[in-house]
């Protein structure tokens, strides 16, 4: 059915005289899946939404009225917010059965009903079977109510007062039985031990003081087996050796207790010390392992300190630690020496390398110079030739000798003679001239 119908249905339903199932005291534990997520009670008249979420009919109705806006025909499911149009009134019978079989306490428990009933039956229990349901008095002139179980076959009013013969108190007839058996202050009871009659209320006090009650000897906790009447117990206790020795036992017990405490304390301390010792030992082993890797000197030293440490476990740890410190210091010193040595060596080798490289560089320089000179020497005749051909072309009549003189003057140096002598060996085509010129 859609929402409007569902809401309208709720307006009609009448809950007068119904047991409020939500207020019940659920005795047995129930599965949380049987619990309505809104009211956290086992489902009461469950209904189902399209998204298969189940709620109590009443809870869902109040949720819809709060969250459903009047103009829309759907509302969000309280659990998953799926927009929902239809509410299905049919849920699996399994679900309702499981909810109905949960044990609950009768809601009339405050009237005295102790009954536990499956929830499905609680309505009929309250209506028909519960004897603690209050019903109007059968006598119409009486305006009091009476419990159903007090109604007797003759159906007469039991609200009249009658007088208790013992305490002279007026008691309502329906309460008389209870008064007679339990509540009357003048009710007598017999002490089972001494046989005297006492008022029932003081029976408890009487039993504690009754001289006839059999009670154990004070030395019972130390092994006295005697169980004697209270009247005679003091004479027994005067003679009982266990009672006499009792205080001594007490003192011993306290001593043992305090010693045990002490021992625990000492054990704890011992554990702490042992831990410390173990720590020191492990550091020692480590340090000796490290120092054995370096040279021979420190090894001997730490061996010595190890020896010392092993018997120092009984003496004091400070000396041991000091010696350890000392050996470490020596190690550090040695490492420093080694470092300086290495430093010197390194600088020596660097110097050597430098010298060698310098020499090499000098050699290379010389070689480069020679090469440069050779190149110059090679270039000279070419230049010489170039100028000569150019001037020949330009001046025409100018004699080659003049040009040669010019060249000789512009290119002095030792290569000059060679250039002059080589020049004619290399005849040049006129076309070469321009190319050579651009190259230079």
């Amino acid at each position: 059915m859609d929402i409007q119908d569902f809401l309208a249905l709720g307006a009609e339903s009448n809950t007068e005289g119904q047991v409020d199932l939500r207020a019940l005291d659920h005795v047995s534990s129930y599965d949380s899946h049987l619990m309505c997520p809104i009211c956290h009670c086992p489902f009461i008249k469950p209904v189902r939404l399209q998204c298969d979420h189940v709620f109590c009919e009443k809870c869902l109705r109040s949720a819809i009225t709060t969250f459903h806006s009047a103009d829309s025909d759907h509302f969000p499911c309280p659990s998953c917010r799926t927009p929902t149009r239809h509410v299905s009134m049919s849920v699996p019978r399994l679900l309702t059965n499981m909810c109905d079989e949960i044990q609950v306490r009768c809601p009339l428990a405050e009237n005295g009903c102790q009954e536990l009933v499956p929830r499905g039956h609680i309505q009929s229990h309250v209506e028909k079977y519960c004897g603690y349901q209050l019903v109007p008095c059968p006598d119409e002139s009486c305006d009091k109510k009476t419990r159903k179980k007090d109604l007797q076959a003759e159906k007469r009013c039991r609200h009249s007062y009658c007088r208790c013969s013992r305490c002279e108190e007026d008691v309502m007839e329906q309460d008389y039985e209870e008064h007679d058996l339990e509540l009357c202050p003048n009710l007598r009871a017999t002490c089972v031990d001494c046989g005297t009659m006492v008022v029932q209320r003081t029976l408890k006090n009487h039993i504690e003081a009754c001289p006839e009650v059999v009670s154990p000897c004070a030395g019972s906790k130390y092994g006295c087996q005697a169980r004697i009447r209270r009247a005679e117990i003091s004479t027994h206790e005067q003679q009982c050796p266990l009672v006499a020795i009792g205080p001594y036992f007490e003192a011993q017990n306290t001593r043992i207790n305090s010693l045990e405490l002490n021992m625990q304390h000492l054990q704890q301390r011992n554990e702490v010390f042992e831990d410390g010792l173990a720590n020191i030992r492990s550091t020692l082993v480590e340090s000796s392992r490290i120092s054995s890797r370096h040279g021979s000197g420190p090894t001997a030293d730490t061996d010595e300190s190890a020896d010392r440490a092993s018997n120092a476990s009984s003496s004091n740890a400070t000396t041991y630690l000091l010696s350890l410190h000392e050996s470490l210091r020596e190690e550090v010193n040695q490492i420093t020496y080694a470092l300086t040595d290495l430093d010197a060596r390194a600088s020596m080798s660097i110097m050597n390398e430098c010298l060698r490289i310098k020499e090499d560089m000098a050699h290379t320089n010389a070689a480069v110079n020679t090469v440069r000179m050779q190149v110059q020497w090679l270039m000279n005749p070419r230049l010489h030739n170039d100028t000569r051909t150019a001037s020949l072309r330009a001046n025409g009549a100018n004699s080659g000798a003049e040009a040669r003189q010019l060249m000789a003057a512009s290119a002095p140096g030792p290569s000059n003679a060679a250039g002059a002598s080589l020049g004619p060996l290399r005849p040049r085509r006129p076309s070469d001239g321009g190319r050579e010129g651009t190259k230079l």
Partner: protein
Amino acid sequence: MAMAFAGKRLSKMNEHLPPGITLVKSDTLEEWQMDIKVLDDNPLYKDQTYRLKFTFSDKYPIEPPEVQFIELPTTSDTPRPIPIHPHIYSNGIICLDLLGRSGWSPVQTVESVCMSLQSMLTANTKDERPPGNNDFVAYNRRRIRDINFVYEDDNV
């Protein structure tokens, strides 16, 4: 209706609370106090405990409870600051759609609200108060249910 089963909820809740959430005070059925802790090591909230006050109306759980952080001074035995968060005003009022009428659902419980707040704090990285915090704290005299929050931030 609320009162009938609020007590029932309470007894059920004490059985198993999620980690980091403890019930501090529940002597009345109208007001409860809870302590929550942020469980991961978000530096903003590390090693801090915050006190939440739940106020239930007659219509709970159909209507949302009022939830806010409350502050206990640092001098007390149990100092409880107000966590810093861009949606928590310094007077403890929380801007969370879950707690408003639009976002509330009757299936929510005290635990689920606490867990939502835990995760809201966990996810936060900004060390700041909401914009307009000072004005709001100074001038707001309305009850929490009457404040019209605008839930603009979907990231938190």
